[in-house]
């Protein structure tokens, strides 16, 4: 037997009246702080501070401490020379595939599966992902995240989403795979589609950020700025052209509480484990496949074919075409490869932005497919169009500013 909705609510009231007694609730400091962090004026200042802390800790830990402090040294001074010495026959195919350039002096430039592949995944990306997830978890468990969602609600409505889109968006800064699944918090197919496309295109994952921070630290800010602007522009456009609704939601704001450390530890473990399982093999095999394609001459052929597009439309030098094509499979290393090519800072920004908005990694493709192949196909179409338009746009801005 089922009740009509109104009667059910009446019954809820009746039961609640009989069972719940609310004493006089004294406002606590937690309540006051909770309130201050959602009010626009104070809330935005706090958000600015939180972002600052996030980025500062991220770059101190991942950049200065682990990667520069230990990993670079371990890989360049010990692992690489050892591998170059013991691996037989530097002229052979397998040497090229696994060790890469026999004359390379650091692991970024060797481009072998066991040199660059391993260095990027373990030495650069792993610490970045680890610290990212630690901070993310603390933000989640303390209850700050829903407050950020409330603050961002107005902004996100402009691009066809609502405040809760902040959850997949932030998750995407770690890894796009869980972020795509997290788009399920959005109500309509339109919203989910917009979010997935924007995620795949404009949100660089922890791996990319980690590598960028390592190879081109002085340009990262600009690249991120272009990505944020692109996120806004294309969200706005997609909202206009995609049919569907964007319902208002009421965001539930839980009270602040201290994170439970065993919960934080558990979550950190799980997330890192699934990153190791999903992403690391991909980086390694991506390097391997690109090396095979280089040997087979496919990358070269594609580069010749696409050269006019890249040089004329995007305004990047001829040499970048190869790495940019290879970036379809090896996004993280493409940045490292690009950093070795001589070009103007603006061309560098352009090409790194291009790499970031390129195809997402294979793992992301797979989860997007799980959410629906039609959406995936449409997202890919959006992506191709976006790369083309936005790449040209950045070039145009560069010309106008006189720096391209």
């Amino acid at each position, binding site marked *: 037997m089922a009740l009509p909705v109104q009667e059910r609510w009446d019954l809820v009231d009746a039961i609640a009246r009989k069972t719940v007694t609310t004493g006089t609730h*004294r*406002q*606590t*400091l*937690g309540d*006051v*702080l909770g*309130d*201050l*962090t959602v009010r626009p004026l*104070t809330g935005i*200042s*706090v958000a*600015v*501070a*939180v972002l*600052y*802390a996030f*980025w*500062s*800790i991220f770059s*101190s*830990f991942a950049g*200065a*401490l682990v990667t*520069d*402090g*230990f990993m*670079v*040294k*371990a890989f360049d*001074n010990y692992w690489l020379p050892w591998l170059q010495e013991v691996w037989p026959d530097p002229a052979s195919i397998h040497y090229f595939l696994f060790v890469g350039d026999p004359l390379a002096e650091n692991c970024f430039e060797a481009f072998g599966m066991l040199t660059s592949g391993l260095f990027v995944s373990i030495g650069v990306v792993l610490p970045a992902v680890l610290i990212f997830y630690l901070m993310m978890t603390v933000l989640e468990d303390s209850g700050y995240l829903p407050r950020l969602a409330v603050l961002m609600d107005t902004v996100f409505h402009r691009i066809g989403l609502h405040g809760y889109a902040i959850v997949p968006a932030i998750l995407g800064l770690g890894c796009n795979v869980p972020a795509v699944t997290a788009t399920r918090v959005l109500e309509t197919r339109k919203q989910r589609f917009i979010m997935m496309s924007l995620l795949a295109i404009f949100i660089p994952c922890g791996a990319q950020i980690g590598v960028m921070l390592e190879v081109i630290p002085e340009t990262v*800010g600009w690249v991120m700025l272009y990505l944020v602007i692109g996120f806004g522009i294309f969200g706005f456009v997609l909202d206009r052209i995609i049919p569907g609704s964007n319902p208002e939601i009421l965001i539930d704001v839980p009270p602040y509480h201290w994170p439970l450390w065993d919960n934080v530890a558990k979550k950190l473990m799980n997330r890192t484990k699934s990153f190791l399982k999903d992403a690391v093999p991909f980086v390694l095999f991506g390097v391997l496949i690109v090396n095979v394609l280089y040997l087979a001459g496919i990358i070269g052929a594609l580069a010749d074919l696409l050269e006019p597009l890249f040089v004329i439309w995007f305004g990047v030098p001829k040499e970048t075409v190869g790495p940019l094509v290879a970036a379809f499979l090896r996004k993280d290393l493409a940045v490292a490869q690009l950093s070795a090519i001589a070009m103007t800072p603006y061309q560098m920004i352009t090409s790194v932005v291009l790499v970031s908005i390129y195809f997402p990694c294979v793992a992301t493709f797979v989860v997007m497919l799980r959410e629906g192949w039609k959406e995936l196909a449409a997202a890919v179409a959006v992506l191709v169009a976006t790369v083309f338009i936005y790449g040209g746009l950045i070039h145009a801005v560069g010309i106008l500013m006189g720096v391209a």
Partner: protein
Amino acid sequence: MNQNSTTLSLYIGLLGLVTLAFGLADILVWAGASPGFSVGILEIAGDDFFRWAWGGAVMVFGGLFMLGGVKSAGSLEQFGKAVLGAVMVWIIAGTDIFARLCESIPAGEEASEFFNSVAGFVGGFAPPYSPAILLLPFTLVILYFLVTGRFDETRE
């Protein structure tokens, strides 16, 4: 109680002003692109947009929050603002200290060993300090009031 509250107000107001001034100084040194500013154990390097312009803005917000919480600092709501202002200073100081920690554990690129010597490690924490770190001990007073709950009759 009343007198206690007035003293607290005065203290928070003073701290807020200094924080605000330091925050503005951070931004100004960065914007002026001067070679940096250093007095005694205080140093504003101003070399990096992120640390000095953005971080300086956070300090400015912190100072404004404290000033906003000056009036009747004994009430919970007003004290909340002061706490939030102090949290802003803690964020900047905390990340500064964390950055020093991260830089002084490894031995540095040129050295052959991995870990820094103890002397090198400790040396990483030598003055001069950024304004936020210098302000840190002074904001601890707010922490004291927070923990003891002496700002108000309310718990927590």
